[in-house]
């Protein structure tokens, strides 16, 4: 298992009201201005955003909208990289990652090139849109392929730094943006960041799941660590913090996605892991993201109950 961690730059200065998508677009537009290697490839999603429209006018050869053609968008990103460019492809998570999965598999790693993929939508951000626009399995899909860095920001201010750092490399980088955000940002430099210490299990909260985890564990003597870079996972940090060998993973995507990583990291000691995340279920339901959190057991009350039962 690799222990190398991505370089993380300074957080971009963004206003408090901005969304992760706004923060991404601002940062990408800034990168277009300063780095002639950077090209943004879109498939209609976010094309109308003011800063992208402005960037497209200023850099027509490097802001490229292929229409509603996600497979082409991802392959074209790979083709750009073959000429030495640094592509950023962006769309809704299910279309960027699930529809174009083979393009991701073959047109970066297998070609020996890198790229940056940035999604919006997450597991059920647009809950009213239903299952077609949900992508709880995206991080698990990246786990089937070698060498991807995966960022799951928990706050708009956690977006620009990793994006800017990624642009300086030729790495394969996925950023999973969400409309759900924690109240405050946490800069992690790619490592597990200890939020609170206790005697019980180590609870690892990923990205936007942190605030619910903090509410759920408010009265418990557990440790809570925050991660917004999950691949490569901070194995050294995990080993240092998992004193009891008891780990609770709370991931805002497919339940159990990182169980393998924890098991491998703690192979030399007795361990128990509780994985909490989005269930393998098509609920055929709409409602709000908070409703889906509750249905999947990711709301504070459910988390509290499950973590307390595990810690007993």
């Amino acid at each position, binding site marked *: 298992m690799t222990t190398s961690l991505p370089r993380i730059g300074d957080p971009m200065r963004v206003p408090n009201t901005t969304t992760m998508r706004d923060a991404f677009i601002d940062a990408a537009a800034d990168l277009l201005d300063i780095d*002639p290697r950077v*090209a943004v490839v879109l498939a209609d999603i976010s094309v109308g955003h003011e800063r992208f429209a402005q960037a497209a006018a200023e850099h027509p*050869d490097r802001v490229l909208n292929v229409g509603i053609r996600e*497979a*082409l968008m991802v*392959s074209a990103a790979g083709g*750009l990289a*073959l000429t*030495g*460019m640094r592509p950023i492809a962006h769309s809704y998570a299910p279309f960027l990652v699930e529809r174009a999965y083979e393009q991701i598999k073959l047109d970066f790693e297998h070609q020996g090139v890198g790229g940056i993929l940035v999604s919006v939508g997450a597991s059920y951000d647009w809950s009213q849109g239903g299952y077609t626009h949900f992508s709880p399995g995206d991080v698990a899909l990246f786990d089937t392929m070698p060498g991807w860095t995966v960022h799951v920001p928990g706050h708009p201010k956690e977006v620009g730094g990793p994006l800017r750092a990624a642009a300086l490399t030729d790495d394969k980088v996925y950023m999973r943006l969400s409309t759900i955000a924690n109240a405050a940002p946490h800069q992690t430099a790619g490592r597990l960041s200890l939020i609170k210490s206790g005697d019980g299990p180590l609870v690892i909260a990923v990205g936007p799941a942190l605030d619910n985890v903090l509410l759920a564990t408010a009265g418990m003597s557990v440790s809570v660590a925050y991660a917004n870079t999950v691949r490569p996972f901070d194995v050294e940090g995990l080993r240092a913090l998992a004193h009891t060998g008891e780990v609770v993973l709370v991931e805002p995507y497919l339940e159990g996605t990182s169980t393998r990583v924890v098991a491998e990291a703690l192979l030399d000691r007795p361990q128990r892991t509780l994985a909490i995340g989005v269930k393998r279920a098509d609920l055929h339901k709409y409602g709000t993201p908070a409703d889906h959190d509750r249905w999947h057991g990711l709301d504070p009350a459910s988390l509290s109950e499950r973590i307390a039962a595990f810690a007993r």
Partner: protein
Amino acid sequence: MTVTSARFGYDDLRGLIKRVVDVKHAPEDSTLDVLWTLYDRVLDLSPETLDSPDRDRFYLSKGHSPGSFYAVLAAKGYIPDAWLDQAFTAGSRLGGHPDRLLVPGAEISSGSLGHGLPLAVGSALGLRAQGLLKPRLYVLLGDAELDEGTNHEAMAYAGATGLSGITAVVIDNGSASHGWPGGIASRFTAQGWTASEVDGRDHDAIEAALRGHDGNSPHAVVAFATSTHF
């Protein structure tokens, strides 16, 4: 045009292919004359210029049956011809589908159909963004490969945006299960490409078609060629 001292000529190619494949089971050579004409007459490319940003690129999208491709690369000095004898074995750089990390001259890794033209779209965009307007991107596809929808995403976008640096060469050996009523060329011209149809064994005609782009639109060459058992 830069051409290295070829150690083998056209008449040697079938002998080279036989070193790669069991011809009784893999007689596919419908791509041979187009490949030879590209490398012998058209591509501004040599083993010495493989890293030059200004080189022409050839993307073999139809990665199946690469014997002809490997034979041409060996004939033109991109790979040692001794590699042909070891193809497909453990440790060989030459496999059933070309891997660009293993084969000098293979600009893309291919095998899964429908990736070459979309990759070429991105590369054409990348070259344009860097002001590299001289290089041309040639992509070789098969008529059955066109079944894959990703090609049609690339055709529509390249035509609509006038990506004039691309030439798609479709080898039509009639292997598409449901055919292409009205012809393959019409699929391209309907999307804003120019297109030529050519006898896939006639080197002069192939060369003229490969040079048939007008500088404003992407160009397609449909080369009719049946496979020959030899």
